[in-house]
């Protein structure tokens, strides 16, 4: 009953429509396209079912694929991290409890990797975001060929980790390298970029900075363009110069965007992998012969696929996740604090 009523209600507007205004309406006015009562209720039932089910059908692919290849593996990683799983003997998986984690916490290489991840993350993220704000500020001026400038700044983003790192390896090489050659013009002795801790960490960071500064600059530029113009007008009426406007209008208005990029870059830095791997060449997974730039991502790859201890690799993965959660929590706290102080 209700379904046929609905069918009637539905057909009403199209019957009201002036014949000829729409091809469908015209057909209905002639009565040819109008379904007879019986099949109509079946049709409207189908229609209602369609209305109800289709939203779920549309979002289903995402959740099915994410569930199968993201969520379930995530839980299995936790399971494997409590087992002894060896790459060359996958059938023998024995329960070891928290051994993998204990092993991890007592390993010097783990702490070294954690410290490297932190240092490289810091020296790649902080200058990167600061430069990105500066570049965004410049791009926000009225420029000739503004699109071209933006595209050029974004070019490094199109380069893959692999291609970019291979070029930088050569630029940073000890003798004959472009960077040491340029440094000698300003009177700096050649630096061993691949075997000194500071040098190699700086070199790896510079690859990250090169690839991502333009990308972040565009994000800041988008946020700068959304700042209402009257804020600047009233600031300049108050006698604020360009620098003061930048400090007291632009930066505060960008705060949410800055926090967003800090979070995204932090996530990226925690997972840093390709740059140090390729920078090290043959000893890549160790982060150089002296483990100078072995990050947590590299340490996991090294333990899992070079040494072949997949259980320990799983434990490293979960430790990385926990660290990320802590970082996210700290970020949230800072955001709250900032909001309150405003």
């Amino acid at each position: 009953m209700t379904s046929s009523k609905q069918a009637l209600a539905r057909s009403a507007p199209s019957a009201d429509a002036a014949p000829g205004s729409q091809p469908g309406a015209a057909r209905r006015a002639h009565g040819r396209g109008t379904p007879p009562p019986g099949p109509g209720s079946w049709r409207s039932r189908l229609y209602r079912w369609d209305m109800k089910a289709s939203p779920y059908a549309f979002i289903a692919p995402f959740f099915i694929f994410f569930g199968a290849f993201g969520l379930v593996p995530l839980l299995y990683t936790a399971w494997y991290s409590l087992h002894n799983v060896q790459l060359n003997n996958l059938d023998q998986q024995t329960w070891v409890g928290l051994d993998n984690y204990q092993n991890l916490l007592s390993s010097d290489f783990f702490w070294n990797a954690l410290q490297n991840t932190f240092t490289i993350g810091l020296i790649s993220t902080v200058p990167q975001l600061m430069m990105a704000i500066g570049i965004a500020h410049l791009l926000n001026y009225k420029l000739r060929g503004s699109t071209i400038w933006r595209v050029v700044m974004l070019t490094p983003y199109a380069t893959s980790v692999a291609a970019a790192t291979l070029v930088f390896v050569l630029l940073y090489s000890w003798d004959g390298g472009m960077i040491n050659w340029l440094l000698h013009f300003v009177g700096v002795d050649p630096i061993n970029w691949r075997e000194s801790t500071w040098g190699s960490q700086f070199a790896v960071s510079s690859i990250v900075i090169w690839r991502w500064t333009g990308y972040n600059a565009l994000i800041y530029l988008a946020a700068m363009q959304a700042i209402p113009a009257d804020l600047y007008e009233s600031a300049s009426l108050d006698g604020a110069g360009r620098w003061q406007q930048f400090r007291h209008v632009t930066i505060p208005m960008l705060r949410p965007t800055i926090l967003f990029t800090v979070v995204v870059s932090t996530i990226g830095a925690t997972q840093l992998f390709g740059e140090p791997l390729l920078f090290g060449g043959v000893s890549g997974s160790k982060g150089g012969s002296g483990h100078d730039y072995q990050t947590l991502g590299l340490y996991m790859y090294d333990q899992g696929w070079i040494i072949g201890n997949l259980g320990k690799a799983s434990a490293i993965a979960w430790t990385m996740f926990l660290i990320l959660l802590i970082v996210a929590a700290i970020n949230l706290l800072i955001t709250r604090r900032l909001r309150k102080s405003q």
Partner: protein
Amino acid sequence: MTTRELTPPQAQASAAEKVGRTGSGRRRLMGAGKQLHAGPLTYVVLSVLAFISVAPLLWTVVAASRTNQRLAETPPPLWVGGNLFKNLETAWTEVSLGTAMLNSVIVAGTITVGTVLFSTLAGFAFAKLRFKFSNVLLLLTIGTMMIPPQLAIVPLYLWMSELGWSNQLQTVILPTVVSAFGTFFMRQYLVQALPSELIEAARVDGASSLRVVWHVVFPAARPAMAVLGLLTFVMAWNDFLWPIIALNQQNPTVQVALNSLGTGYIPDQSVIMAGALLGTLPLLIAFLLFGKQIVGGIMQGAIKG
């Protein structure tokens, strides 16, 4: 996190046009009304930064056109030599870059089609359809962006080898074929770009959901689908971690091939540079053609994301 609701794109564009007319007379996409003209110093600084952006790529061409011995000498070469094609040929054959290119096109292409299609469907549902738990599900979707890929790779590796899928392309395609970012990106776009009246009108005509998607949603979403497609293609082409674990040298993507060039035991730098050049070339061409759209997409995703 920076969900700052903006004026609709159309309104923004027309505001920009006004600014443009009073200014240089050209149409500009500028939200800020009072825009300062750049002084000569700005151009100088920007030129230096632009040079830093492209110099490593230009120098890749120089290095790829020299010999290994020449690259070890000081001063390093600053202009192209005569060995480019010989090196390109060596790189092409040494790590089967031909196979790698074809594989990368298949992988990145499939991932792009899947991501755009599924993101548009899900984005439409989240933007315009009413259903139970839609807000919670949307939050969940966004939350998944926080999960690093490292957390899934050990089980994925084990399962894929059990299925006998190691070294096959579906191993790389399947885990990446949907995207939380894409879903959110399409949702934000469709909220504004797709008038609800249009959907209602189609409904009144008795159109099924699939017909609505085909005749109303896809046409309205086309600009955002194109941008998302470009961004996804760049990301999929450059993906590194999972491909080098899941694939080997027999059936590599470009990144896997470049990795084995770089970690080879007989490093010929000029050949490595030729490989790096070849692996980047397709994306650089895409950038020349669609750079403006990619820039626009990142800026749009940034504000709304």
